[in-house]
């Protein structure tokens, strides 16, 4: 890919298009990945609040545990942007999130 020359870039290094930081996949930095155990998860939203990257997704997807408890929501991880910091796992009150080594 050829990048633009110095006469083709905006003055003062301003970014003109909002919301394009999603194009930067910080997930590549990760060495540990969080995995949410949907059976243990109590949908308390703590991980969602603590995630510094906004990489915990709150999805409207019903889930029924083996014990029969029904939830309207499911919490998932945006692996494109999760840097693997482990804050979610540390904060989870029911230890439903485990950090697993990334494998190739």
């Amino acid at each position, binding site marked *: 890919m050829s990048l633009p020359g110095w006469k083709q870039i905006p003055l*003062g*290094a301003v970014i*003109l298009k909002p919301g394009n930081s999603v194009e930067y996949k910080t997930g590549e930095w990760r060495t540990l990945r969080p995995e949410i155990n949907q059976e243990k998860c109590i949908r308390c939203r703590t991980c969602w609040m603590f995630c510094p990257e906004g990489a915990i997704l709150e999805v409207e997807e019903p889930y029924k545990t083996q014990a029969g408890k029904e939830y309207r929501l499911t919490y998932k991880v945006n692996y494109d942007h999760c840097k693997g910091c482990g804050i979610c796992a540390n904060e989870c009150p029911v230890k439903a999130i485990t950090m697993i080594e990334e494998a190739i």
Partner: protein
Amino acid sequence: MRALLGSVKALNGAEAVAYAVKQSNVDVISAYPITPQTIIVERLSEFVANGEIHAEYVNVESEHSALSTCMGAAAAGARTFTATSSQGLALMWELLYVTSGLRLPVVMAVVNRALSAPINIHCDHSDSIGARDSGWIQFYVENSQEAYDTVIQAFKIAEHSDIQLPVMVNLDGFHISHTLENVNILPDQVVSDFVGFRKPANVRVEYLGREVPAVLDGVTPISLGIIALSDYYYEFKMMLVDAIDKVKSVIKEVHNDYLKVSWRGYGDGLIDPYGVDGADIVLVIMGSAAGTVKYVVKKLLESGLRVGVLRLRTFRPFPYEEVVKVLSGVKVIGVMDRATSPGAYGAPLFNELRSALYDLDSRPTVVNFIYGIGGRDLEPLTVKRICEKLLEFGRGVKPASYVEYVGVRR
């Protein structure tokens, strides 16, 4: 015609700067007091408190915050002004590069003062000369009148659509800032018409399919102060280098326009030669001491010696083409620096001037005279001795040293 040219006021250099700012439709002023700059912000805060100007005066706890405030306001489209000296400029250091990198046309008066240690409040150029690579345009004025005129011109130069760079107007601490002079003041309306109001540069936004002002206005979101690593940083620096190269023609243009409204000019706006045509020796200098040098040179010219003085009005951009043109044919040149660069071969003005003259077919003898450090007085007799020395070099005497520290006790 007289009313058109305004009035005469007894002002010191600092007050002259404040008066120019007062007349220049400034939106935001933020500064922190420091000797010898304090008078500038004192007068400006009075103007704001009295309702004489409709500007925001933001009190801050440091120079770092003062320049940050101006940057933020400038990014939102405001015309901004700040002023500082010495340690204050040193504290602004990281923001100097950010201001120029973000291409924000902030205007700052720097009342030149020596840097600590030992602590000293008097004039030398070590504060602003140290900032020469920060991407700011730098003017060095000779007197209060020029300080007034240059501040007005500075807003137009900084905000020019091809430039969009910050400007530093340097005036010598105490020699200019605290010396009362009769200053010709233009009528408010003339200055207001000359500088107008700030119009931020437009930028084309592809997803909108149109041009918008490149400011933080909340309507069309843009991000400022972004990261650019090895893939983009160099290109942004190149843009800055290119912009500051264009400044020379803009300075000449604005200087010429100002000449038409004020009937006052300083050489071509970049260099101010006096007696240089046909001179055997020329002294090159910046700042208030040029007045002393001109006084001596005038006496020597009257006694039949062919002596000239070239005062540089700008150090950034360095007017190398203009300097080479004026100095080609001169046999001996003395460069007067009011700053030291410990460990370097001579001081910055000497280095840059000598380098600019290197490509001449017949190179002149160029000698550096470092003077006035920490406010040390430069007496007319010293200037006369320097001229006599240069005339000797012109007669074929080889300089014992090409870098001389004048006025220091041994």
